């Protein structure tokens, strides 16, 4: 018995030791764009879209697991591996697209900061610069371990969505039934929404961030089992949060009158009839998610680009040692935050553009990932087993199809 207990304690300790990369990546997936997508889905279609969360979770776990496995086995980041196996030109092309896509993502995050605080009548000319400076200092002046702790704490704040979902007193029975009952309608708005939900789930930057974070954390094949568990739990938690966001909006907005909402802050205001706490929690969640993603995206971009192209990278290097790294990191924040402050800047159009850039990039990344993870000289005994390969390729094909569809619709309706 005692032996069993100590074994159990050992496993818990190993799990805590690897906790971080998978959890954080999955949580950041619910950034301001994700929250908007889920809110809009709940506000317009109520509980109907809930069934997609289950397949989304599976797809998310499959892709994230591959990245963390590659990180643990090779000890190299994804852009490192792409560079080493596919050469400079492809890497350069991918990195250029990644910078473009992530820059627009960063804009969206700072826009999220602005709109969540405008609910409390704080001007964006105050909130956005403060957030930008705060983010810059957090990462440049902190070290990986302390920054990770801050990030893990930020992950906990997502609980606000669970609470606000409960405060709204939604129809739990309806929610439960719709979570497992697939519902398709030949309504173009509904299909667009479904594609949007899946499309925002797997972003190119996540794959780079997760793999680098696993490497940085020093996870090896020995403690990989714990790492895989961590990734899985993270992915499930993310979709639990998504569930409560949809449920909150369904209970508060859709059940009164289904309507289109234009940003996540509007969804927060929709919770007003259920008390100011519901609004407060929902917008606090949005603010947290935006700042969280705004801290990670520029950092992850600068890391991936510098690793892939062979420049010195890392916040533990001095500015004179890694000039390109700091230049990229700082510019992403300055430009991303700056444009939100320009009156009349076509922000919506930029965010649509970011979806297109993400969509163009994602197929390449996913295909490269499956190719890399099947290289025996890299992965040894850790290559994909056959059944997993089937699942991986199926995921890749589905994701590419959906993303291209999303890009197609975006281009036709949006720009």
């Amino acid at each position: 018995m005692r032996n069993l207990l100590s074994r159990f304690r050992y496993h818990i300790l190993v799990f805590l030791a690897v906790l971080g990369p998978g959890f954080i990546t999955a949580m950041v997936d619910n950034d301001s764009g994700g929250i908007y997508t889920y809110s809009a889905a709940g506000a317009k279609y109520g509980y109907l879209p809930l069934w997609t969360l289950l397949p989304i979770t599976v797809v998310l776990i499959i892709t994230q697991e591959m990245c963390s496995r590659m990180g643990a086995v090779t000890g190299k980041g994804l852009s490192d591996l792409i560079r080493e196996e596919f050469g400079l030109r492809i890497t350069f092309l991918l990195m250029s697209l990644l910078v473009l896509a992530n820059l627009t993502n960063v804009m969206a995050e700072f826009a999220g900061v602005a709109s969540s605080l405008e609910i409390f009548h704080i001007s964006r000319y105050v909130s956005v610069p403060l957030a930008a400076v705060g983010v810059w200092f957090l990462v440049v002046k902190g070290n990986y371990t302390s920054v990770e702790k801050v990030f893990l704490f930020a992950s906990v704040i997502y609980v606000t969505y669970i609470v606000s979902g409960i405060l709204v007193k939604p129809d739990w029975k309806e929610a439960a039934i719709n979570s497992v009952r697939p519902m398709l309608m030949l309504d173009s708005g509904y299909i667009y929404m479904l594609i949007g939900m899946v499309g925002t789930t797997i972003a190119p930057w996540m794959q780079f961030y997760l793999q680098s974070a696993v490497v940085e954390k020093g996870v090896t094949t020995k403690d990989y089992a714990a790492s895989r568990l961590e990734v899985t739990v993270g992915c499930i938690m993310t979709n639990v949060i998504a569930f409560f966001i949809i449920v909150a909006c369904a209970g508060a907005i859709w059940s009164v009158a289904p309507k289109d909402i234009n940003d996540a802050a509007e969804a927060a205001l929709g919770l007003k009839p259920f008390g100011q706490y519901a609004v407060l929690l929902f917008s606090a969640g949005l603010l947290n998610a935006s700042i969280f993603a705004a801290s990670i995206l520029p950092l992850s971009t600068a890391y991936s680009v510098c690793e892939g192209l062979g420049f010195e990278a890392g916040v533990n290097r001095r500015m004179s040692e890694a000039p390109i790294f700091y230049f990229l990191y700082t510019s992403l924040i300055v430009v991303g935050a700056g444009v939100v402050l320009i009156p009349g800047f076509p922000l919506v159009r930029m965010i649509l553009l970011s979806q297109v850039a993400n969509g163009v990039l994602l197929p390449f990344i996913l295909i490269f990932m499956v190719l890399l993870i099947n290289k025996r000289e890299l992965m040894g005994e850790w290559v994909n087993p056959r059944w997993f390969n089937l699942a991986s390729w199926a995921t890749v094909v589905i994701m590419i199809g959906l993303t291209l569809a999303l890009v197609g619709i975006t281009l036709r309706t949006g720009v």
Partner: protein
Amino acid sequence: MADNYLYFTELLSMPVLDLTGRRIGRAKDAALVPMAHPARIDRFLVGGGDTWLTVRYDQVRSITLVRGIQLSDEQLLPYHDDEYMLRIGRDLLDQQIIDVTGRKVVRVNDVTMTIQHDGQRDILTVAEVDIGIRSILRRLLQGVLTRPAIRRLQQAIPPNSIRWEFANVVEPDPLRRLRLNITYDKLEHMHPADLADIVEDLAPAEREAIFDSIDSEVAADALSEVEDPKMQASILESLEPEKAADIVEEMAPDEAADVLSEMEEETSEEILDEMDSEPKTDVRELLEFAEDTAGGLMNTEYVVLHHNATVADAMAALKGNEDLLETLNTLFLIDEEGRLTAAIPLARLFLAQGESRLQALASETLLQVTVDETQDRVTEFFDKYNLLTLPVVDEEGKLAGVITADDIISVLRQK
């Protein structure tokens, strides 16, 4: 001699002409045979028809940027991979190498070779490994613009490269490493802290390769300088137990105990079994103490004398402990039962006569802590009394070990 150098990217797809000036194919790769010559391009791989052909360096007449490679002998053998060949395109380009003088890990963008005419033929010799933006530009533009145009264009960017002699290729496979004549001798002359920085930048397999082949003493110094205890442990775990034991024996016992306590018991026992008996007992004793107590911090490298000993005795004792001299600053006196009675600052010996008693030179107050004293208290002691060395005693007052200032600095750094 305007064109006395050639970039590897320029060599790629350069036409190869036979004796009559007819083109038989294009250059696909070039290879060194380090066993034969460390820098001379020994083989050119030519692709034309179905198979690749191998051109030996002595089958070449001339190499020019404009005309390509002209042969002096057409008896070409089909290419087959041989393990004595270091192929520039496959094994070097886009891979990470160690810059020995710059003391960092860099990624190879291109290779600069010199062309020398030895009377009969042009010989290519690898001169520099290119790592900067200039070489990235060259790679990206190759095939888009003509070779001379790219050369003109790149003038604007300052070159960034390292001399081939100071570049160290990292090869994880021990057999291939042997055949390619790759050694890590150059790394052994580096400062251990620099070597540790380099090792931290590499992937686990490469780390292992380096520790596996460098001298145990150097490896021990470098391993002590690796900051992350988890990484230290995983490096040792990846080595054969005999090699790991050799390294651990060379480490200071307290550091060795710290690393071993990070490992799973099974593995650390395996390593301990391989160790010589004397260092093994020291390390085993230290392993008994909790990491965050004085016992966990202390090491057993100190010089101790009987409390009636004279300065001459001390001198004799020091002669027997020359390996400790670099860091030693205090001597300790014990009574018949092994209890600590006095501490002597080493510098006082210089002012004393040979026959005078050591006791007379002792510090006025004897500062000491017990093995179970907390880490925080010990740190406080060092700060309050400006200590360099602090003796640690067991419950009976017997000297168990000493804590030195560098141990305290490590503790503070890790916070």
